[in-house]
């Protein structure tokens, strides 16, 4: 149905362009410079005047039609079904599949009724929409073409339309953030405060509980499972792996950056930079596979030869590979800030007889410190939010341990584990993933905002 609508739209928009252009040329009477705007702009304006309202109608109209159809179809079911959101949505699904001729279950009269009315109202609604759209389109076409005159400022009007498009595009980024905040926040609040939810923890239990076992939430009837949502083991696991990662990437990234910006010849730079870019471009699923296939057995082997008990999904393996992932991140950000330190500072230091390393350590690094700190913060936020490496190389069991040779789990691993597979939006287990997502979003957001603020101030200082 929407394809019919869209083809009518396309036809009208195209004819609007050509009609508008032709009309404007006719109005000009052979002397184009008599027109305020070029004929093409008259055409474009006519098109946009059709496109805007018709798209708006589609965006508003089709969900409205869908909603109306559903409520009409729902009225064929008994009140008990209608009042329960779960049952009613299941009933609607059944009716929809019956209407589409793909229903395999038992067909009750109510269901048959619902399917019939669903199909009928949907058809009527859609035709209504198409008719309305075509009318509006034609109306706009007539209105705008009729308005074309020598002095009509079609260009200015069309540019206003374009400006609105530009603003809407810029708003998408903001809407994304709002969407993230609201969707995550809403489910999180339900997790803590929805009275209909069985087994929900309090905020304190969540934040300070030391046991994480969301699977237990499935056995609601078997007693108290509020203790199943203790966030601490996940936090410790995440921090452990992040610490290892920063322990690897910090020195390696920073020293590479120092070497590249202060010592390396352009030739060396031209080889090493792409190397870091390649590393940065490797998908994390590849690194995760590498961690699980190569690094973890290697560490386990070494550990065993030293007589240590190493888990096959040790935090060390995941942390090492994650460190690998953020080396290019640390190094390119640090490289930027080190390069932003003015040459005059270095020259001043050299003039006092300092060696290069003394200049770097005593002058350049202190001057670049805020930038480097923010690079590390961004790297930490990266590491906390990284999913695939830990999903593939770290464990599932929420052990509360600081031993890097043991298996730990992380926030992202738990989100992934809970949400992959069947989700029910009314179980504490599923909502717990959103609570974790909220924590993750919040923590990384704070880290990012602080880091970006530091960088911004730092840039302004030397600009």
């Amino acid at each position, binding site marked *: 149905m929407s394809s019919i609508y869209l083809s009518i739209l396309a036809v009208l928009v195209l004819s609007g362009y050509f009609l508008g252009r032709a009309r404007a040329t006719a109005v000009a009477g052979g002397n184009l410079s008599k027109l305020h705007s070029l004929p093409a702009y008259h055409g474009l304006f006519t098109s946009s005047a059709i496109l805007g309202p018709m798209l708006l109608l589609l965006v508003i109209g089709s969900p409205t039609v869908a909603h109306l159809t559903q409520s009409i179809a729902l009225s064929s079911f008994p009140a008990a079904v209608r009042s329960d959101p779960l049952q009613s949505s299941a009933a609607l699904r059944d009716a929809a599949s019956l209407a589409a001729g793909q229903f395999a279950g038992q067909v009750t009269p109510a269901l048959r009724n619902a399917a019939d009315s669903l199909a009928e109202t949907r058809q009527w609604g859609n035709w209504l929409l198409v008719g309305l759209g075509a009318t509006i389109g034609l109306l706009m076409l007539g209105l705008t073409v009729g308005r074309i005159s020598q002095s009509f400022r079609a260009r200015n009007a069309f540019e206003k339309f374009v400006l609105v498009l530009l603003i809407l595009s810029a708003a998408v980024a903001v809407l994304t953030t709002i969407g993230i905040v609201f969707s995550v926040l809403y489910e999180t609040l339900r997790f803590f405060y929805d009275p209909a939810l069985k087994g929900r923890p309090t905020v304190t239990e969540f934040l300070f509980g030391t046991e994480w076992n969301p699977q237990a939430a499935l056995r609601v009837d078997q007693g108290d499972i509020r203790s199943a949502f203790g966030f601490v083991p996940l936090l410790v696991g995440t921090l452990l792996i992040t610490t290892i990662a920063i322990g690897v990437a910090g020195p390696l990234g920073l020293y590479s950056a120092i070497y590249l910006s202060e010592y390396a010849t352009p030739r060396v730079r031209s080889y090493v930079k792409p190397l870091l870019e390649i590393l940065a471009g490797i998908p994390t699923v590849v690194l995760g596979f590498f961690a699980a296939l190569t690094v973890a057995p290697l560490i386990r082997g070494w550990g065993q030869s030293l007589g240590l008990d190493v888990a096959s999904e040790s935090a060390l393996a995941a942390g090492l590979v994650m460190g690998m992932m953020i080396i290019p991140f640390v190094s390119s950000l640090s490289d930027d800030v080190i390069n932003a330190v003015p040459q005059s500072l270095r020259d001043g230091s050299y003039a006092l007889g300092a060696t290069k390393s003394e200049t770097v350590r005593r002058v350049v690094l202190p001057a670049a410190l805020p930038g480097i700190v923010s690079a590390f913060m*961004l790297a930490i936020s990266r590491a*906390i939010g990284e*999913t695939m490496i830990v999903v593939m190389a770290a464990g599932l069991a929420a052990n509360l341990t600081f031993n890097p040779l043991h298996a730990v789990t992380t926030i992202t691993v738990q989100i992934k584990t809970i949400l992959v597979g069947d989700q029910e939006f009314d179980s504490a287990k599923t909502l717990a993933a959103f609570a974790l997502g909220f924590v993750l979003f919040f923590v990384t957001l704070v880290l990012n905002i602080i880091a970006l603020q530091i960088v911004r101030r730092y840039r302004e200082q030397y600009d």
Partner: protein
Amino acid sequence: MTDILASGSHLDAARLSGDATRAKIRARYRSEVRFKAYGVVAILVTGLFLSVLMISIFANGLPAFWQHSLNLELSVAAEDVDPTGKRDPAELRSGDYFAVARKALEAQFPGVEGRTELKKLSQLLSTGAGDELRRRVVSDPSLVGQTLQATLLLDDNADLYLKGAGTRIASRAGHGIVTPSAASGEVRILSTSNDFAREITAVKATLTDRATTLRVEAGRLERANVPETKQKGQQAREEAAALQARIDGIAGIEQLDDRMPSLLIAINGGLVKAESVGPAEIIGTTLLPLTSTGDAKSGDWRIVSYITPESNRKATDIEVAFLERLKANGKIEGGFNWLFLTGGDSREPELAGIRGALIGSLLTLLVTLILCLPIGVMAAVYLEEFAPRNKLTDIIEVNINNLAAVPSIVFGLLGLAVFLNSLNLPRSAPLVGGLVLALLVLPTIIIAARAAMKAVPPSIKEAALGVGASHQQAVFHHVLPLAMPGIMTGTIIGMAHALGETAPLLMIGMVAFIVDVPQGLTDSATVLPVQIYLWSDLPEPAFQAKTAGAIVVLLLFLFLMNGLAIWLRKRFERRW
């Protein structure tokens, strides 16, 4: 004045000639060298990481592009593929081509008749071994009843064995004249010379190793305080003593087990697996039946051993025997594994391919590109050219920078809650995947596009404004075209990022096991990185190679895209 001069020159002299200061300067230079070395080491370690990663992936992945098959002459029996004899295409399509393949394979081993042996034999074939044959027969029904040369896909384990994951095989000619007691089943082989002395020694060496390990283990266990553990230690010590008795005893008949290299005798066209061995005799069973029970002269029979113990490999002795025989007969051929590139996903490693995932990735990226290129560029144009400088614009800007650093899994949560749950869009569909990835990549493209537009000198815009172009005309006619190479570079890099992204797609259900290649934007689909993740989780070793192989393909695409971006940058880079 003179004082100052004097003290000054005194200082200078001390500075330049004092041993202590000279040592200090040397120390400073040493620390300089050290500092520089740290940098070099950091880069080298990073490089080492990267090379180990690449080598490990490619070494694991390249075998996935190679597949072994059987090339046998077989007859397409009508009773298997067309029992009614109507040559009806539907009937032909549902024929039992695996049976045809199985029979052809069994014909290669005439004497093999036991149920277990035949089962082992048919397990060498992939469950999809008949697929190729089916295609040929359906497209040309006249082949029914004919004898033809066919390529039959081997099972993943057989394939792995042939790729070298099996065992090293040693073989030497026997000295004595030997007499087998039977042609099949239980066989006793007597030699006229001490042909198996070497094997006896090897067995004893293995036993000695085992006894040593047991004693060490026993010592460790006995030190424990727990009574049960102590008891276990006692047992281990007793076992070790029993082994020692066997080792010390005179060379009698030694029992072989599956933790020792397998010993086999190739004789009279058959193969006997030894179960026990004496200096001049073997007792065992036939793997491949013998043609006769006649004597074999010196040099006409061979002593074969499969070095890797049977318990340490996937292919059992009989499978090795079958495959080696087929190989020796030239029935096995290897070739480029087209199925890997053209097939959909499958539970059978040798049938699994990445085409479905590739098409899924393509569709997803298409949606992403269509959405985020225009939106990203328009947003950048607005922010760079038309947005008034105020608090709101500031917020948008901070917001975009932050969005670029939000963990990707959070975008998955957004997709799940908004696109699937609220808007009821189909799960696992490239449409939703593309939407989520578009939101994910949008900040990158906006930032890149803004940077590219900033790099266009303002004088160009002024020139356009000066001849009376409107602001929008100046931007769309001049600034944007000049910024386009930069925008395209940023877009390609963003797309490469999207191609490798996995986590958010897991959230919106693109992890289902999907055999069919997706046909449209709303079909269930998976993408390449998710396919990699799914395969990496499977236990079969062959899937590990498939995983690495899929990674090789993914990396190839990423290198191509990044290469294109670099080329664009180099080709259209303009210095103002």
